[in-house]
């Protein structure tokens, strides 16, 4: 089969690989029909995530057709069209039993501080991902769900991560009616977080980024007020000015480890790997939210320490909430929102790239060329 393969920082290629085998009785092998590149993949691509090995296949956003099932699989049969949450989880451990699917204890041998994610380095379990023609899907009875007939394929693939994550992030904000919400980052995750904040009853949604074309999308798609942080000497002061100098009630970090806006933070993290991530957006969130406010962290950071302004967070009495999204938990309600027309996931898709050209896809998405917001990956086997 054809599969994307990591060759080192900023380098990937498509190789011929063996089709994955059933390795556990509850495994399924899924033939991928549509995939996507996520902002999280960029952290791997840039060599920031420890134990990202040459030869691994990335990709945690994919849908496909069940090709084989292991002997203990009850809920799926070959031929089923499935959407697969980016989390790999057992359904039965302490954490899964409490709905913390992204924190499963039975699937990641390499680390206890993170659950397992498809194609997301050995730190996230060492599983190959779905930017390929076939993928091994562990716990086939737990995560994968048959795609409803009414659902568009592109919407389905976006629900496997970005939509569910943004929606989850708005919930982490504990938004109450009329709250002012600041969303840092106008990538797919931030756009869906902004959109979801309205569902929770926000009174005002403000989106911050430095890419004008993404801010344009935040205005049109997410009905948000927007500010380009590169146009202000100090975006925190600007955010205070527009919130009566009290600060916003809620801030959502949808940027993560590679935040721009502070060269020293960027270089020490993204380039020198001296910290787990550049917490520029997180620090802006801490400083711009009001005292007693809530911060929702969706942005991903590496397992190393990061220079976070913890003193401010403590002195301001903030509530910090965060997690990798437990994707499947969001689906039933999100399906209703989509059917009601409140949300059209594939509005953020800008590029559709054949698997054979995935190296170009990564470059376009990483360098933010050509108005790129969300690139999908088309597999030949589809």
């Amino acid at each position, binding site marked *: 089969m054809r599969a994307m393969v990591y*060759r080192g920082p900023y380098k990937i290629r498509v190789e011929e690989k063996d089709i994955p085998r059933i390795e556990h009785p509850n495994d399924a092998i899924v033939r991928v029909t549509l995939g996507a590149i996520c902002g999280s993949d960029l952290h791997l691509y840039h060599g920031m995530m420890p134990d990202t090995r040459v030869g691994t296949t990335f990709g945690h956003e994919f849908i496909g057709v069940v090709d084989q099932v292991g002997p203990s699989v009850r*809920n799926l049969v070959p031929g089923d069209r499935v959407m697969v949450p980016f989390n790999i989880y057992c359904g*039965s451990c302490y954490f899964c039993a409490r*709905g*913390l699917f992204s924190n499963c204890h039975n699937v990641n041998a390499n680390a206890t501080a993170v659950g397992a994610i498809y194609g997301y380095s050995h730190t996230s379990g060492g599983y190959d991902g779905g930017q390929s023609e076939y993928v091994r899907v562990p716990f086939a009875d737990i995560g994968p769900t048959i795609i409803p007939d009414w659902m568009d394929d592109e919407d389905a693939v976006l629900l496997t991560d970005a939509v569910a994550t943004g929606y989850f992030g708005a919930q982490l904000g504990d938004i109450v009616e009329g709250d002012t919400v600041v969303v840092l980052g106008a990538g797919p995750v931030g756009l869906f977080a902004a959109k979801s904040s309205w*569902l929770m009853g926000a009174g005002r949604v403000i989106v911050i980024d430095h*890419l004008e074309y993404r801010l344009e999308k935040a205005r049109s798609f997410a009905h948000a007020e927007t500010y380009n942080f590169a146009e202000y000497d100090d975006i925190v002061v600007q955010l205070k000015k527009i919130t009566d100098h009290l600060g916003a009630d809620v801030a959502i970090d949808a940027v993560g480890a590679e935040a*721009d806006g502070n060269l020293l933070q960027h270089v020490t993290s993204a380039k020198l790997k001296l910290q787990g991530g550049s917490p520029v957006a997180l620090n802006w969130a801490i400083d711009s939210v009001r005292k007693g406010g809530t911060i929702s962290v969706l942005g991903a950071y590496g397992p190393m320490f990061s220079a976070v302004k913890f003193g401010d967070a403590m002195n301001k009495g903030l509530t910090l909430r965060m997690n990798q999204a437990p994707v499947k938990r969001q689906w039933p309600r999100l399906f209703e929102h989509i059917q009601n027309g409140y949300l059209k996931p594939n509005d953020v898709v800008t590029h559709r790239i054949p698997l054979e050209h995935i190296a170009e896809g990564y470059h376009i998405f990483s360098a933010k060329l050509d108005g790129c917001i969300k690139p999908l990956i088309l597999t030949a086997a589809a």
Partner: protein
Amino acid sequence: MPYTADKPSRAESSEQLRARIPGWGADLDPRMRPSVPKERFDPGLNGAHWEFPDRQPETRPRERSIEHAFLTPVFGTSAPPKGLSGVIRRYAYRRFSEGRAAHWLLLLGADRVDAVESHLASFVTLRPDNPITETGVVAEPSHHPVASRVGQKRADLAHLPLDPVLVVGPWLLAGGLVLAGVRAVVRAVRR
């Protein structure tokens, strides 16, 4: 506005927002929010028909975090450790918990070694690494390289010149190693 006890007045009322934004307030009631509360104990909900999963066979020694009691019942089998990077990785797992910076720094170091090892190894295969195609820069001419960057206040342009250093670095290192190796061999043969 003076600092008083009032919540700042809103520009738009809930009614106006409901009229303007599709779905506004659909999840206003926290009971409609699927992730509230954070923990909800319901072991039957997830479709697991086991109390503890079957164990995936360990066909080769599988490195694991020493914070785990045992090898997890299911684990990934992509890219087993190999070469010098593999030795470093195994040591990082065996010796240091996730709580130790040494664990992660060794793993990051192993990643860099892995990249150099793999580039070198690729030169003796039918498909050597190709920095032009693998970095995807061939997409530049057809995807508005100038318009996407010039005339805008993009903060990331500040570190744009650094990116190639990361890309070319391992190549220079690999090239240097090859050169040093060749020189050593030549010297040995001459002697």
